[in-house]
């Protein structure tokens, strides 16, 4: 057991695509997180939700340019945050 087991990492990400964090991006986030063990939470405007649930993510209704905070807890937290930032940076595959 390394000390990485319970590490908690945090990162701020900005939603850049035109329609905000709608169904398709939320699905992509959940799909990306499925393979990792880390517990991931997303918070926006004081509301914090489980990032592995689509309906939870949608509840936030994050608009374009909204800034969210991702908290990942677990052995693979680092990779999780890296992959998520790539998704956000890529506009979730939508047109820039």
């Amino acid at each position, binding site marked *: 057991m390394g000390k990485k087991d319970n590490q908690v990492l945090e990162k701020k990400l900005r939603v850049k695509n035109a*329609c*905000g*964090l*709608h*169904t*398709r991006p939320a*699905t992509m986030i*959940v*799909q990306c997180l*499925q*393979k990792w063990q880390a517990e991931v939470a997303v918070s926006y405007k004081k509301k914090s939700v489980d990032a592995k649930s*689509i309906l939870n993510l*949608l509840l936030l*209704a*994050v*608009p*374009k340019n*909204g800034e969210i905070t991702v908290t990942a807890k677990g052995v693979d937290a680092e990779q999780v945050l890296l992959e998520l930032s790539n998704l956000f940076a890529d506009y979730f595959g939508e047109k820039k």
Partner: protein
Amino acid sequence: MYKVADLVAEHGEPLGLELVAGKEGLKRKILVPEVHRPGLGLANFTKSHAVKRLLIFGKVEIEYLRDLTSEERFYRLKPLLSPKTPAIVVARRYRPPKELVTLCEENHLPLFRGSMTTMKLLKKLTGHLSEAFAPSVSCHGSLLEVFGMGVLIQGASGVGKSEAALGLIERGHRLISDDIVKIKRGEGNVLEGRGVELTRHHMEIRGIGIINVANLYGIVCVREKINLDIVVKLEVWDDTHFYDRVGLEDKTIDILDSKLPFHLLPVKPGRDVVLLLETIALNHRLKQMGYHSAKEFSNKLLKTIARKKDGKKR
């Protein structure tokens, strides 16, 4: 190959067919699902006469032949009767001219009298023949009627198709066939599924054996055929696969060149497959009525996000 004898066996009685001549010809093959009134052919115009079609003699044909001399009747009828012509039906129970009877007897061409009017006979025969010639396929799976929808349950052997089917029957839905389903494409690209005569309404449940559903649960729990509406494939839960969680994309599957809505349903202990199948059927009915739950939700969400963007609160 569809033969004249098959047509008579299946539809002879309702069509009121009565064999007059050419009994030996009953084994003639029907090559095309088409019928034809010879009209012009009788008037000696035999260019591009469709020899493979089943011939129907109606009032006009019979009246026309009556006006001819016996010799001429022979001469006019002969070129119409090809070895490929499957049969001749005289409508309205007209008595066929004796020249026609003789020719049919000589050529072993089945000649019938039918009780219907010409147009009705034409329509019915075309219908029966196109049904017999419709493209069909046999597939592995259980076919049930769930809330009025035809649901085909597919999946690998042992995944629990029959158990799911039994659960649905117990809940008051109907079994069409378990294990083997014959699918036929009818008019308007409708896919009609039915069971095979021998195994119809029988099920094989591991650990129990073969049961007869119609006897066990009553005749209300079975039906002969249904039009397919949805295909559901059961699959053992795969942790690495990302299953549909939103339902915004409508997936389809091709059966006999027709597209059918398709759902991949993962199975694992604790998932009530019967309830899930019922939900799929109901949600699909809702979609047919114009309400798409996932799309409706997505639109509502987009509106909420858009309102926030305007800087207004809530």
